[in-house]
C-alpha cells in the first residue's frame, strides 16, 4: 500500500497484483466461522486497491504454487512457510504479468531486515535473480539503501523521493501511513498465510505423512483450515465442526467423505477422512458424541452416513476427556 502510493505520487501508473495460493488467511475462515461473522468480510487487496484508486488483478496460482510448498528451494521458515522461495515465485509471476501486459517494472513493499529470511540484504538479490526480474524490481521503501535499479537509472522514478527504511520495526511504515492519511490497514506482519501458522503446518505435515507423499489439492488445504482435527489411528482422522458455520461448510463435503452427527443431542458434523473399518467408525462415533451436548450423558445416538446418502444410527457412550490422548489433536 505504502510502496504503491509512493510510486503513484511520482505520477507513475501503478496496478496491483494479488496472488491466490489457497493458503491465504482472509476470506475463507471469515466466511465460514460464526465468530467471524461480525467482522467485515473484505478482501484486503481489493480494499487497498480501492483506497489507492488503482486496478487490481487477482491471480489464481493454486496449481503452480504446489511446487513451491512441496519442494521449497530454500527450505521452510519457522513452520511450513517457504518464505524465500515464495517471494521469488511471486515476483517471477509478477514479472511474467508485467511482460505480458506492457508494464515496465515491479514494485514491492519489502524492507531490508524486516523478515528474518526473505527480506534480508543478502536475500533480496536472490529474489531479483531467481524471479528473472533483476533490476526491474524496485523496493521503494528501502531503495536508497540498495543499488539503483533500472527505473531509477533511467529516470522513470526519482530515487531522491524513495526511502531508506531498514529493520524489523514497523514504526516507520506506521508513521508513513499516518502521513498519507491511512487510518486503517491490513495486518502488517505474516498474518496473511496459513503456512506461517504452527498448528496449520502441523496438520499439513500430518496430511502428507498419512498419504506417504507430499501431495495436496485445494479441498485438502481448505479442510485444514476448518474444524478440530483429531487422528485417533494412523488410517483415519476426524474433522469436527466447531460451530454452525463450520458444520454447514463441512456438510458440503458429505458426498466425498463418510460423515456423522448426533441425532439425540445437538452437536457437530464430523467428517471421517481416511479408510475406516467398523471399529474405527465406532470410535469416531464415540468422539462425535464427546463433542456433542450429550457429552456427559450415558448414551448418545449418532448417525453414520456413507457417501451415497445411506445412514445408520448407532448408540454410543461418549468418550471421556481422559480417554482422548493429547496427541490425537492435530
Amino acid at each position, binding site marked *: 500500500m505504502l510502496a504503491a502510493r509512493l510510486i503513484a505520487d511520482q505520477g507513475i501508473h501503478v496496478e496491483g497484483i494479488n496472488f491466490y495460493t489457497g493458503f491465504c488467511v482472509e*476470506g475463507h475462515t*471469515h*466466511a465460514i466461522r460464526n465468530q467471524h461473522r461480525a467482522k*467485515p*468480510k473484505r*478482501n484486503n487487496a*481489493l480494499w487497498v486497491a*480501492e483506497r489507492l484508486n488503482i486496478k*487490481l488483478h*487477482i491471480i489464481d496460482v493454486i496449481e503452480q504454487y504446489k511446487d513451491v510448498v512441496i519442494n521449497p528451494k530454500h527450505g521452510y521458515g519457522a513452520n511450513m512457510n517457504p518464505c524465500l522461495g515464495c517471494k521469488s515465485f511471486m515476483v517471477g509471476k509478477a514479472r511474467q504479468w508485467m511482460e505480458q501486459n506492457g508494464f515496465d517494472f515491479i514494485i514491492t513493499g519489502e524492507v531490508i531486515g524486516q523478515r528474518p529470511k526473505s527480506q534480508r540484504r543478502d536475500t533480496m538479490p536472490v529474489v531479483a535473480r531467481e524471479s528473472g526480474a533483476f533490476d526491474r524490481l524496485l523496493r521503494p521503501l528501502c531503495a536508497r539503501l540498495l543499488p539503483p535499479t533500472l527505473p531509477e537509472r533511467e529516470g522513470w522514478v526519482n530515487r531522491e523521493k524513495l526511502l531508506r527504511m531498514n529493520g524489523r520495526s514497523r514504526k516507520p511504515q506506521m508513521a508513513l501511513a499516518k502521513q498519507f492519511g491511512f487510518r486503517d490497514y491490513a495486518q502488517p506482519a505474516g498474518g496473511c498465510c496459513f503456512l506461517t501458522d504452527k498448528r496449520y503446518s502441523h496438520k499439513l505435515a500430518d496430511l502428507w505423512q498419512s498419504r506417504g507423499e507430499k501431495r495436496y489439492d485445494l479441498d485438502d488445504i481448505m479442510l485444514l483450515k476448518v474444524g478440530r482435527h483429531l487422528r485417533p489411528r494412523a488410517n483415519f482422522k476426524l474433522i469436527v465442526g466447531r460451530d454452525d458455520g463450520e458444520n454447514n461448510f463441512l456438510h458440503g463435503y458429505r458426498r466425498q467423505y463418510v460423515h456423522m452427527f448426533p441425532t439425540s443431542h445437538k452437536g457437530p458434523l464430523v467428517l471421517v477422512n481416511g479408510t475406516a473399518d467398523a471399529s474405527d467408525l465406532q470410535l469416531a462415533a464415540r468422539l462425535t458424541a464427546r463433542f456433542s451436548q450429550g457429552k456427559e450423558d450415558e448414551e448418545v445416538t449418532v448417525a453414520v452416513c456413507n457417501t451415497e446418502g445411506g445412514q445408520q444410527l448407532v448408540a454410543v457412550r461418549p468418550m471421556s476427556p481422559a480417554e482422548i490422548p493429547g496427541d490425537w489433536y492435530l
Partner: protein
Amino acid sequence: MSRHELDARRLLCPLPVIRVQEKVKTLERGDTLDVLCSDPGALNDIPAWCRINGHKLIDTRSEGHHITITIEVG
C-alpha cells in the same frame, strides 16, 4: 450486448472474484453477467472489484443460501 451466467457456488472468496475476472475478459462492453455465489464475502468483494475495474454493479439478490450478483461490463 448479451447476458451471461457464472456459477461460483461453493467457491470461497477470492475465487468467485477470480472467476468473474476471467469471465469478464471474454465479454464485450455492455454485456451483463449474473454471478451465482454461496460465499457471503462475494457481496463485498465482487462490487469492490467492479468499482476499481470500471464495471457497473446492477443488482444483488439473496435467495436462501445463494446470492446472485449482476454486473454490467464496463
